[in-house]
């Protein structure tokens, strides 16, 4: 069986790696929201990303996959400079949001993170009410008017598909919600600052299948208005929800293609070995 697979790989994976990115750029009809150019990243002396060049379409879902430690989460966090808070980190290369270099000295990091929201693996609502959790961002950003805040909270909860479930308990503590509801609350909280981009780091990995399905449906809805980049260890989830998939291995971007291509005929042998569970 393995020798047969070797043969297939020899024939199917004959194009060189650098063509991947070129082809993504050449065939892409939509404008790019996020672009990285030769992005390398270091934790102290350890380099964890190597010359990653990637272009991410607006209003699309891009899934980042790869084994643990491959750099996908680090890459995700460079997009809203979350890595800045880790001491001893540095990067080379460029990350741009709609053409603006987000690491340029004049960039206001707080404003950047308003535009690029983030949702984490474990839901992390503040120990406050549902209303206060969602209103937190806009309030910090200066919105004081109660009516406007109430509108933002309702709109964000609706977009996160949670309004009907919490509209009668807006002032109850968020920690009383179920895990899946808490995660959607965190999504609503991220939406409240009216971002363009949503970064998601394994947002459904701690949820049961029904809650996972809700989050996945929500991601599908949200891509009409937002650019979504999601890290996931769940291959089927990446296949279901994303338009494009990028495979990382040991800090390198191995392949980025339309998701349907990646999961039916990946160009690179390493991608195939990973998604079919032959390593990693």
């Amino acid at each position, binding site marked *: *069986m393995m020798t*047969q*697979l070797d*043969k*297939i*790989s020899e*024939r*199917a994976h004959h194009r060189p790696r650098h063509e991947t990115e070129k082809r993504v750029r050449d065939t892409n009809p939509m404008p790019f929201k996020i672009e990285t150019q030769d992005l390398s990243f270091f934790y102290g002396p350890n380099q964890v990303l190597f010359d990653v060049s990637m272009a991410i379409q607006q209003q699309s879902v891009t899934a980042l996959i790869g084994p643990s430690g491959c750099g996908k989460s680090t890459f995700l966090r460079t997009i809203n400079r979350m890595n800045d808070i880790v001491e001893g980190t540095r990067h080379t290369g460029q990350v741009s949001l709609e053409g603006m270099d987000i690491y340029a000295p004049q960039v206001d990091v707080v404003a950047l993170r308003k535009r690029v929201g983030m949702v984490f693996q474990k839901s992390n609502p503040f120990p406050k009410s549902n209303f206060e959790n969602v209103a937190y961002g806009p309030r910090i950003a200066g919105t004081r008017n109660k009516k406007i805040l109430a509108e933002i909270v309702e709109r964000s909860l609706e977009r996160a598909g949670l309004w009907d479930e919490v509209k009668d308990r807006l002032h109850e503590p968020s920690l009383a919600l179920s895990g899946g509801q808490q995660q959607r609350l965190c999504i609503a909280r991220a939406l409240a600052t009216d971002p363009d981009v949503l970064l998601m780091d394994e947002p459904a990995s701690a949820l049961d299948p029904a809650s996972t399905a809700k989050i996945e449906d929500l991601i599908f809805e949200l891509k009409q208005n937002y650019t979504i980049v999601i890290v996931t260890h769940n*291959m*089927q989830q990446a*296949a279901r929800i994303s338009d494009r998939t990028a495979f990382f291995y040991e800090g390198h971007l191995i392949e980025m293609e339309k998701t349907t291509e*990646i*999961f*039916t*005929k*990946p160009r690179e042998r390493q*991608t*195939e070995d990973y*998604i*079919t*569970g*032959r390593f990693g």
Partner: protein
Amino acid sequence: MSIHLTRDLDGLHRSLLSMCAMVEEMVHKAVDGLAKPSEEFAGELARQDDEIDRCDVQIEEECLKILALHQPVAIDLRRISTVMKITGELERVADLGVHIAERASGLVPGTEIVVLDKFKEMARIALEMLHSAIDAYVALDSELARNVCTRDDIVDELNREIIQELVEAMQHSPDLVEASMHLFSASRHVERVADHATNIAEDVVYLVEGQIIRHRSIL
């Protein structure tokens, strides 16, 4: 890859190879039978066809089980989908084998048919195509598979010539009408065998290269 998936894929591979062998043997017998027609012959092949039908269902069940349990992707997905399609083609080839045998049973022993040599030539090419398509699957040889596809035109042309000659034979010798009609049908059945061999070869190209070449003029 999980040991379970490896084991299931290996089992599937073995089942398909055994079905290939049965179908090939049966079609060979059917074509050979045209030269020495007999009544029992069609019944014997019909029994073999039942066995092949069971094989077809069993392989499909195995494939569905693997899809449901392992949700394969990439090469594993291509292999399952290819196996499902190839078994379908093989099952229809076996049906054609039965039909050819039925035509053979209808032929009157000893009747001289003028186009028989050309028919044998067409049958030889069609059976070679089937054999090569199966070889291409086993060896994962997409070049060989593409080569099979190109030979389909030769069979189509021979089929046209045979039918033309049979029509002429029937016009000149009305006593040959019955035998010619049987050969007419048999010729179309053999031509269909070549079509199925071509479909299998196209499936092999998809398995190996991930490219669907069906309904495209460029091979």
